[in-house]
């Protein structure tokens, strides 16, 4: 059932368009060197500040670098950092949440208190503090983002497992002689997975914004490595002189995040788990 759900989500009009965009961005990120004749880090100061043209579709930046090229390479940074961060966050969150729900007692209370505490701070604040501690750069950003979203997945997994624990099929498995490992791995986690994955999908959209924000503050990927946030930061000073430098990365971030949310919504509809998510929230 869940194997087919991502496909079913694509059949919805909004899910299909969103999926197409995401596939396009992902493909461009992977195949970047094949798609563009320019290098992302070679400066050509004579060609700086060119408006969009046939040679430079999206124009060039203050160092004369092709903006489209940097955008495509930037997708590599932004997408891989956000996606990896969320993947780490989901993995850790599921283990923590499942353990808390399963073992209960003081461990559960401790996890819940920490989760509730982190939950009450905005993600950006947590991420900023962490980057300040770890130091700027892709690794720092990745860790910061994954910690910032950890509470969300821990909480969701815990809620899912708590509900599932009361289901009769868990008791039925026990009556057959099933141990903890069997019940966790064969019943609880598989059933908790779908809502967590959808929530991860939506969080990836937020993570892209968070990554761009950190990049904008100069805390993300360091020059000359392009990132969408870094590009916007550079463009912000030149917004009147060469508006395309900030507009195109901004648009890319916006469209990508909207696409992720649209696809996520389509996925929720395809999985029919809206009620489950609401219960957990």
């Amino acid at each position, binding site marked *: 059932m869940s194997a087919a759900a991502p496909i079913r989500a694509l059949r919805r009009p909004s899910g299909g368009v969103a999926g197409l965009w995401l596939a396009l961005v992902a493909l461009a990120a992977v195949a970047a060197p094949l798609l563009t004749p320019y290098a992302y880090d070679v400066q050509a100061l004579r060609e700086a500040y060119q408006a969009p043209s046939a040679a430079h579709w999206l124009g060039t930046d203050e160092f004369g670098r092709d903006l489209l090229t940097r955008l495509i390479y930037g997708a590599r940074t932004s997408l891989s950092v956000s996606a990896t961060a969320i993947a780490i966050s989901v993995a850790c969150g599921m283990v923590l949440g499942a353990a808390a729900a399963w073992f209960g007692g003081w461990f559960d209370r401790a996890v819940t208190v920490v989760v509730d505490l982190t939950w009450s701070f905005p993600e950006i604040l947590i991420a900023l503090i962490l980057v300040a501690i770890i130091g700027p750069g892709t690794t720092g950003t990745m860790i910061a983002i994954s910690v910032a979203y950890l509470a969300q997945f821990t909480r969701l997994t815990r809620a899912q497992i708590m509900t599932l624990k009361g289901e009769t*099929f868990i008791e*039925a*498995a026990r009556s057959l*002689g099933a*141990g903890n490992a*069997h019940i966790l791995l064969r019943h609880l986690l598989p*059933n908790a997975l779908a809502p967590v994955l959808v929530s991860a999908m939506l969080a990836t959209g937020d993570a892209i914004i968070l990554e761009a924000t950190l990049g904008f503050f100069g805390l993300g990927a360091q020059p000359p490595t392009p990132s969408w946030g870094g590009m916007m930061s550079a463009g912000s000073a030149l917004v009147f002189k060469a508006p395309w430098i900030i507009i195109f990365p901004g648009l890319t971030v916006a469209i990508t995040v909207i696409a992720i949310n649209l696809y996520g919504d389509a996925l929720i509809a395809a999985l029919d788990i809206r009620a489950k998510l609401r219960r957990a929230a």
Partner: protein
Amino acid sequence: MTEPLILIEALSKRFQSGGGLFARPRAMMAVRDVSLSVGRGEVVGVVGESGCGKSTLARLVLRLIEPTAGTVRFDGTDLTGLPPAALRRMRRRMAMVFQDPYSSLDPRYTLTDVLSEPYRVQGEPLPTGRVAEMLGAVGLPEAMATSHPHQLSGGQRQRVGIARALALAPDFVVLDEPTASLDVSIQAQIIALLSDLRDRLGLTYLFISHDLGLVRYFCNRIVVMYLGAVVEVLPAATATPRHPYTQALIASGFVPDPAARRAIVPVAGEVPSPFNLPPGCAFAGRCPRATDQCRTTRPALSDEAHPVACFHPI
């Protein structure tokens, strides 16, 4: 006389609920000092209304929950003291069919997954053709093996639940209201199936139900529970009740015969809260025969051929 298959002695379960920062926890005895035996091949019914402790008893017997006191012996082995590994091996010999056929099957599992789970859990290879054989035994087509529970009707799901319980050929099956959420037409099908399976496989059943009519049809011996305690054991399905509560239960059932219409004399009052039981007989507040003795002293289950816990049995 050989030892019965199941021997329950002085079994009790105390639940604590609530409690926290502001509330004092409240305790209740869900099952109070229940002793009971089930002979090989017998079908023993446990009947009572909601909150009487019958479902808790079912779970205690299979040690799905831990008793507060008392023992359960299964074929001579004390289940209550069994270490986990030995208990798991013992679970091959006893199984349970659950009330709610909707939540008792994992929605992600196919019927093949459901029916091979007992083997996987016990670390045994699944014999080829066993799934089809099990489906056939409960009257389901082999083609359903790849279906998911949501594609099945309530009756069909309950058949799957029965097949799962019988997968490893147990001796003893606890049936916890297996038909309570089904239509009467389907209930009768399931009862007929359980009856056939018992004859064919020589099973022993503990049948939990709120429906005295159904229990009287299906069981050899009937245990009547009220608020956690056994109030009467009917030695045969046709035995005349001696406890006023059992009589009230029978009087509350309606027979499908307008000619047998009678004035309804409902039992007065409400079931008292299990958290705040009266000191004497739990039924005294609703009983037409109650005296002062009933309100102050709790009657014990008598040691007779037809045991009853009542100072003024009928």
